[in-house]
């Protein structure tokens, strides 16, 4: 919501508290139940990813033969998607820290992405997950280049919104890599380049290593046919970029998700924090393979409520969360990929233009409980 006057929760303080307690109870139950099956699950996904990667690179080595190129590129694309989404993103959240296995430690894990893992942990785990959808604090709103909320003032620059979004999708891993640099704050002088030296050197090292692997070493192994693995690797990176952009933008920007102001979220209680995570996130419906390839970010709502629970548990939790939301009259935003992404595209295009009167920001959900008169501001 865009103004503080609208920012009211249609629940009494007692209701918001018991809502928070119900969610805490779910978290507690899953924490107590974590064990061998979760360990087996993530290891199975890792095994599949390693297999797909080796197969993909092997096939692309012989990429001069068209069937090998197609199969190799497909396998490598899937491998990179699994590496980033279901493995990297989730492991780096500390979802498997309880296993005490150094190879699955959130603090030590590194992924096949241009963004260095330690910078990702800061910009994503901390900044985005703590300040979700707070305009001015959550830099995932538009990644510093797009206008994704009416709360961002329109400027002529934003006429290029659809074009910037397309570029961001194509080069998403580099967009993510530059995330912590806050390029837009550098151009306005709010941040100084001198303070960013360490970040830049980290990004440079990571990008160099990845470029060397995908665009020099593996192509070189094919000798005169180097162009085939080169093109295959570039395609796999592109597929992963577009896929992760699509999934991630469907997590917070479909119609019906809300943004918040810093004032609204001061002194939030745990229940209010949960409430904000819920209103700021949207789910995608789909098959089990789809959920795995999305890194279970198709359960964005559950992920934002419980970012450090093993992601393979989100599916089972989601039915309970949905039921709780229905009881409290809180909207639970879910839809198929086509519908959700369509509404994201519409929003990107709509926000390229200045706001028209009477077509402002999304309104808060109506009071969910009948006869409920008392409402409290979100930061009561």
């Amino acid at each position, binding site marked *: 919501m865009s103004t503080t006057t609208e920012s009211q929760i249609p629940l009494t303080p007692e209701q918001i508290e018991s809502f928070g307690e119900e969610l805490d109870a779910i978290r507690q139950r899953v*924490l107590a139940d974590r064990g061998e099956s979760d360990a087996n699950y993530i290891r199975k996904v890792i095994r599949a990813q390693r297999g797909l990667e*080796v197969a993909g690179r092997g096939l692309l080595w012989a990429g001069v033969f068209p069937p090998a190129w197609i199969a190799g590129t497909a396998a490598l694309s899937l491998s990179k998607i699994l590496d980033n989404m279901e493995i990297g993103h989730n492991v780096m959240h*500390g979802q498997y*820290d*309880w*296993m*005490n296995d150094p190879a699955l430690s959130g603090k030590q894990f590194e992924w096949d992405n241009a963004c260095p893992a330690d910078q990702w942990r800061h910009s994503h785990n901390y900044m985005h997950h*703590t300040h979700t959808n707070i305009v001015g604090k959550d830099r995932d709103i538009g990644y510093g280049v797009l206008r994704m909320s009416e709360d961002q003032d329109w400027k002529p620059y934003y006429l290029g919104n659809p074009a910037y979004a397309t570029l961001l999708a194509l080069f998403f891993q580099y967009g993510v890599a530059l995330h912590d640099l806050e390029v837009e704050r550098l151009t306005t002088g709010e941040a100084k380049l001198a303070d960013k030296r360490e970040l830049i050197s980290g990004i440079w090292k990571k990008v160099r*290593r990845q470029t060397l692997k995908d665009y020099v070493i593996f192509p070189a192994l094919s000798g005169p046919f180097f162009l085939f693995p080169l093109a295959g690797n570039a395609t796999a990176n592109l597929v992963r970029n577009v896929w992760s952009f699509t999934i991630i933008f469907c997590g917070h920007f479909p119609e019906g998700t809300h943004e918040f102001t810093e004032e609204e979220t001061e002194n939030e209680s745990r229940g209010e924090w949960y409430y904000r995570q819920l209103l700021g996130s949207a789910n995608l419906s789909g098959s089990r393979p789809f959920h795995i390839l999305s890194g279970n970010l198709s359960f964005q709502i559950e992920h934002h409520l419980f*970012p450090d629970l093993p992601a393979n548990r989100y599916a089972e939790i989601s039915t309970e969360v949905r039921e709780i939301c229905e009881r409290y009259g809180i909207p639970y935003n879910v839809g198929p990929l086509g519908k959700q992404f369509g509404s994201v595209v519409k929003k990107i295009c709509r926000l390229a233009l200045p706001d028209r009167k009477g077509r402002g920001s999304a309104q808060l959900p109506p009071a969910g409980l009948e006869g409920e008169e008392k409402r409290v501001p979100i930061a009561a």
Partner: protein
Amino acid sequence: MTPTATATAPSRRRGIPGRRLFDAIAGPHGIDRYLEQISPTLVIGECRAEVVAASRGTTDSVTLSLRPNRAWGGLRAGQFVQVSVEIDGVRHTRCYSPASPEGSGRELEITVKRHPEGLVSNFLVDHAQPGMVIGLSQADGDFHLPDLRPDSILLIGAGSGITPLMAILRTLCAEGHAGPIALIQYAPDPDRTIYRQELDSLAAENPNFRLTRSYTRAPGAGELDGHFSPIHLPQADPNFATAETFACGPPALLDAVRGTWANGLERRLHVESFVPPSLSPIGEPGTGSIRFSSSNLEVRNSGASILEQAEQAGIPAQSGCRMGICHTCTCRKLSGTVKNLLTDEVSAAPDVEIQLCISAPLSDLVIDL
């Protein structure tokens, strides 16, 4: 059995030709994350071992023969290793002293005795079987035979503290050591005497090896009775005053031995403490102290979250959300008990990762920060 020292030796990286190129190709995960998919012991940067035999002499113990992978750097008789096993998805690590002699090839032998409360010992005694793969550290510890073998050697062992002494004894016998070797073995009774038969046959085969047993709960069954006492020494080893002495057992035995080898004799004494693995006690919130090991700082526990206490002590601890979400402040707890302030869950295990912002101490703590 658990030597109280903890191994610090990192796994040694052998000089594999082209290792850097392999790592560039296998980046960012590293070559081992691919090799382990073929076989878990194929890794080159990390020591792991396969159980090749598991024999259960009693219902209370299991003796495991381990075949370490190529990362293993060997051990000296008397040293210990850390063994890691995964139980219900969680990795647990304990110290064991191999009883196998030096230079006996690549295989290692460890004996695991069941502790009533012991998670790892119960798991291994009940479930260890050939084919199982366990994590292994490099051998560590100063309690071992010197390279220049002393002529006269006295070994004093109690309970499962006999294991490192067994490695020393087997090594000396295999090398054909000519000097006198004496062993005083303390055990409750003949039935609960570890390596009983093997020690008897070693004593029969090696005229220079003198074996003396003292039973603490079976008077008259052995050559001596009761716990360690200096009066046992002349009877067990006429050379005790000049022998290089190796003692291993519970703290009470070692205290008695140290008291005897005083006044200049201590340079001939080597001791290793064996105590059953125990979880840290649960104390009152707001008591005890926190030691931040990397910063070399110790503070009185104020009862606040460990993150706040670290910051108050002036340690630049990394942190983010301060509400248990982002895991930025995650650190290794080396020992002690903490309570999770969100879930009230109590963690008493050593060497596990905790979130500092939502953990408060319940005992003396050592944090790797």
